[in-house]
């Protein structure tokens, strides 16, 4: 063994020119994001157990590296103690390596831009890289780009849901802007689907926004629902559309995240065909028109759809990620005035005409007539 004082650090240029084995001592997540091609990955906590097995030749020169050169320097005594004769640390770590434009290889399913954009998701164990990749491959259809659809669409787009569909034939009206945060004054008179597409694409270019400038009807619902949607967020503003969507979603076997609002109160639940109840199990019949005023007739607090639409986005993200307890079979009741969130049970009705054991409604009906009492 040499008794001269060893130089225990080399630069990235020297490491690149030399023949030594590069050993990356960072953790798995850091390695995945980007590492030096050809390097060996041995996290620092595993050096003692794994290095002798992976590198039996103790005379082989080793260059350790980490992010900036601190950890890789600290592990040198451990490597010495294992009997390796020639180990040095790469000063400045992979950061310095990158700055010199040297090649870096990644195992990540997300590119660097996406890792940055979704970093707060990647930090949550329940989401992480796999969850984010899953969101980017998820397709969610929104019925309505109004009060509920606005916050839901914005949060789903921000979260990186890869494909968002918007069904709305309405145009942006001045009276919408008190709550429909997807639209703006400049978009007055424009189709909501188009205004929404623009806003969502500005927010997140990763999202592919598909627009349907039409009202959901018995004639178009099969075509629209068969275009690969994993789930539907229902923000419709009338009973015929809600019953139509319900029947179609049962037949297409696609979950619906339901939300509705009036004045200070809102309701949220998830209808997952066959796993839980459907809208008809909850409300077999719509109320007569005089008991079902719309927001246009009765008004709505501007922030209420923000609360309810965000709860819908939350349920949609949970379903897409397969985490948590979706509100299946539970109807959440929010009252803005008392700031209270209650919950009631919704059970699947075995006698339901659409999702029951012996269904009697097998094809679309006249929903306007059904809802007129």
């Amino acid at each position, binding site marked *: 063994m040499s008794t001269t004082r060893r130089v225990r650090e080399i630069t990235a240029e020297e490491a690149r020119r030399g023949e030594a084995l590069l050993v990356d001592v960072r953790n798995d997540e850091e390695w995945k994001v980007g590492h030096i091609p050809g390097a060996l990955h041995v996290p620092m906590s595993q050096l003692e157990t794994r290095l002798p097995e992976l590198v039996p030749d103790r005379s082989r020169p080793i260059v350790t590296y980490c992010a900036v050169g601190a950890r890789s320097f600290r592990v040198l005594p451990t490597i010495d103690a294992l009997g390796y004769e020639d180990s040095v640390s790469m000063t400045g770590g992979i950061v310095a390596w990158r700055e010199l434009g040297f090649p870096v290889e990644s195992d990540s399913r997300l590119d660097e831009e996406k890792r940055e954009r979704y970093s707060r998701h990647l930090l949550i164990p329940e989401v992480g890289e796999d969850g984010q990749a899953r969101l980017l491959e998820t397709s969610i259809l929104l019925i309505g780009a109004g009060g*509920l659809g606005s916050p839901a669409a914005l949060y789903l787009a921000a979260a990186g849901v890869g494909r968002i569909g918007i069904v709305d034939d309405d145009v942006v009206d001045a009276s919408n802007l008190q709550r429909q945060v997807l639209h703006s004054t400049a978009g007055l008179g424009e189709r909501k689907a188009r205004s929404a597409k623009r806003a969502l694409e500005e927010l997140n270019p990763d999202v592919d926004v598909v627009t349907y400038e039409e009202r959901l009807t018995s004639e178009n619902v099969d075509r629209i629902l068969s275009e690969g949607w994993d789930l539907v967020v229902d923000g419709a503003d009338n009973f015929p559309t809600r019953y139509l969507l319900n029947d179609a979603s049962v037949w297409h076997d696609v979950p619906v995240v339901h939300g509705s609002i009036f004045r200070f109160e809102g309701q949220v639940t998830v209808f997952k065909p066959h796993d839980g109840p459907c809208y008809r199990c909850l409300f077999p019949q719509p109320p007569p028109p005089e008991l079902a005023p719309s927001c246009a007739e*009765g008004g709505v607090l501007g922030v209420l759809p923000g609360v309810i639409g965000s709860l819908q986005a939350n349920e949609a993200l949970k379903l897409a990620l397969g985490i948590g307890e979706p509100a299946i079979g539970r109807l959440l009741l929010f009252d803005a005035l008392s700031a209270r969130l209650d919950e009631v049970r919704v059970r699947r009705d075995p006698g339901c005409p659409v999702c029951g054991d012996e269904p009697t409604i097998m094809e679309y009906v006249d929903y306007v007539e059904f809802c007129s009492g």
Partner: protein
Amino acid sequence: MITIRIPPTLRTETEGASTVEANGETVRDLLDDLSGRFPALRERIYAEGELARFVNVYVEGEDVRTRQGLETRVREGGTVILLPAMAGGC
């Protein structure tokens, strides 16, 4: 005494009150008690002597149709929720 939550669309019938108190041992008793004070409410939520199909009534968070309907017993100090569907997403 039992608290009954009144949905916004039925508050015209309860003079604007969002909750009302009532006495009784079953849902039927409570609604009878209420109907005495708010006759218009009865008109709204009953159809041919039974609860109208578009109104859900929850006792302890359970739809009374999955219990004993109008004969479902209520607990003193409990809460009953009246809930018709709301369509608005606007």
